[in-house]
């Protein structure tokens, strides 16, 4: 409710509301953008364009619960557009690369209490790597940004049922590769992950 009134204030040209909305979403947008493309400069440019766009077109802005998701969707489209013009190629979805390095980083940051935990981490990492980009994006939106399914659907421009299925399939794939990995490691315990 409060969030919506903030958007209404923004629509009426309230600068304070803009700055509040900005500081509320900029970090999440940045984090999301980085997952789509590792170049932080490009991500910042695109965030700037997203905000400038909604400011310039605030009269047309429709305020619903999904308005925040619209920010993410715009960023995603902007980034895809940029990458497409940059690489001068179509089929951009394949071009979108999630930087694995960043995911590794976050894994290292976690305090690992035991060898067992470290072992689980490695398996999880490998499981996540086996996902497609699209699936990984869905997992990121659901569990890192903690978006609801209708928001995820809005961002990915699909319907809610598809978003739900996408997340479910991704989880299933992770699960399968986790327990498959365990089997492989049981067979060759001396080939333990380094």
């Amino acid at each position, binding site marked *: 409710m409060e969030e919506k009134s903030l958007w209404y204030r923004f629509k009426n040209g309230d600068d304070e509301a803009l*700055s509040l909305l900005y500081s509320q979403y900029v970090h999440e947008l940045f984090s999301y953008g980085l997952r789509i493309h590792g170049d932080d400069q490009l991500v*910042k440019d695109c965030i700037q364009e997203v905000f400038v766009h909604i400011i310039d077109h605030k009269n047309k802005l429709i305020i619903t619960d999904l308005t925040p998701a619209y920010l993410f969707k715009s960023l995603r489209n902007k980034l895809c557009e940029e990458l497409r013009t940059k690489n001068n190629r179509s089929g951009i979805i394949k071009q979108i690369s999630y930087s694995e390095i960043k995911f590794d980083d976050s894994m290292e940051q976690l305090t690992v209490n035991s060898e067992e935990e470290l072992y689980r981490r490695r398996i999880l990492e490998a499981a996540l790597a086996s996902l497609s980009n699209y699936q990984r994006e869905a997992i990121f939106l659901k569990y890192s940004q903690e978006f609801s399914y209708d928001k995820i659907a809005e961002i990915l421009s699909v319907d809610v049922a598809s978003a739900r299925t996408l997340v479910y399939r991704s989880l299933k794939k*992770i699960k399968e590769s986790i327990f498959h990995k365990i089997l492989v490691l049981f067979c060759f315990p001396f080939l333990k992950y380094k």
Partner: protein
Amino acid sequence: MYDFLKIKKINIFCISLIISYTYHIFSSFYQLKLISLSIKIKVNHLTCMKREEDIDFISLLQDERFIYLVKNSFDLDDQVSFIEQHYSCDREEILYAIDFFKANLTEQKRLSEEDTALLFQQIKESSETNNGRVRKFVSHRLWKAAAAIVLIFGGAITYYYSSQKDPLEKFAMNQTVATDDAVLVLSDGSKYKLNEDDSKIEYSQDGGNVVVRNKREQDEELRNKQDDSGPVINQIVVPAGHRHSISLSDGTLVVLNSGSKLVFPAEFSGKTRDVYLIGEGYFEVSKNANKPFIVKTEKINVRVLGTKFNISAYADEKVTSTVLVEGSVSVIENGKLLGNAVRKLSPQQGYFYSSETSSSEIKQVDVADYVSWKDGLFRFKDRTLRDVVLRVRKYYNKSILIEGDKLAGTLISGKLVLTDDIDVILNYLTKTLEVRQELQKDGSYIIKE
């Protein structure tokens, strides 16, 4: 513990070794799908002995109660055992689900402070100019070089300024005066005791002459020694239990509340009229559009042209506030280089800066609640007993304790006459709250239920 795990592991190793070999061999033959399925089920049974309902890695991660639990407790063992109790699910799956969730949560990358502020500035600029194409960030490398230069210069400048502290602030820090009486400290360090409360101090235009008027109409004249070493800086220290008003050389009237200190130049010779305040003061600034009047405090600076307002900046209180009675003031938060740190107030508004959360808010207030102290009245509305007692303590310089957090947090409204005896005041408070007070041997008071 560890050995036991090892033994268990080896056992599982052996069993699963056999099973998985068979599994692998069979599963490679697509025709034998059926067999592989049955073996798969066996494996599942081995790893999930306890499974009754179909709760696993996936359904855990889709369960809101599970996610709430993982987010709100830090001890892994606690989490696991709790979940094991509530869900019939294999321990391994729980562990993976928890790890998966945690790994994702710590994922968030944040934009650095500087970049956040800079980006916002650029957004505002490009949207205001609105010239179709958005201005871009300078190219990557150039940008880095520019940032480095800005950083070096910025660092040098901030170092220069921080090493050259405001002379007023320096003066305030250097001269600590512990006293029971209100004291006026002159430029040469000589102290003049202000015997009576509410005596008035007046400065002549050039700041050379100081007149102290008291109730008995016996005026005393003091002189500030002039020398060429710099501005003549005076300060007035008002201890607990006193209030004093002072009229500065530009005609500005300041009323200082208990436990406050004001540092000011005898004559305002610079481009601005700067004073430094610790504690609480009510200001009636004389109008001078060419020389803004700036009240500096530890957390905020208040800049005005001519107006009436109150500032409360006690070192022992978490909130620094200013409330505007008349005119307009700008509040500048200290220590912020970027962003919108300047806030404008209109009459009947109050600005509150909390040093606990480093955040500020502006809200409409009943001005009388904040300035009535200058007339010897303490008016308050929906304040906790803790806050009220803190104030009373400042006036009377007596230790007052409240027994119990619940009592201390009780909200009260009302008005106290501060010229009354402390016993009378405490009587009012305790009667209103239907509690009692006790006077200890060491002279401190205790309020208890």
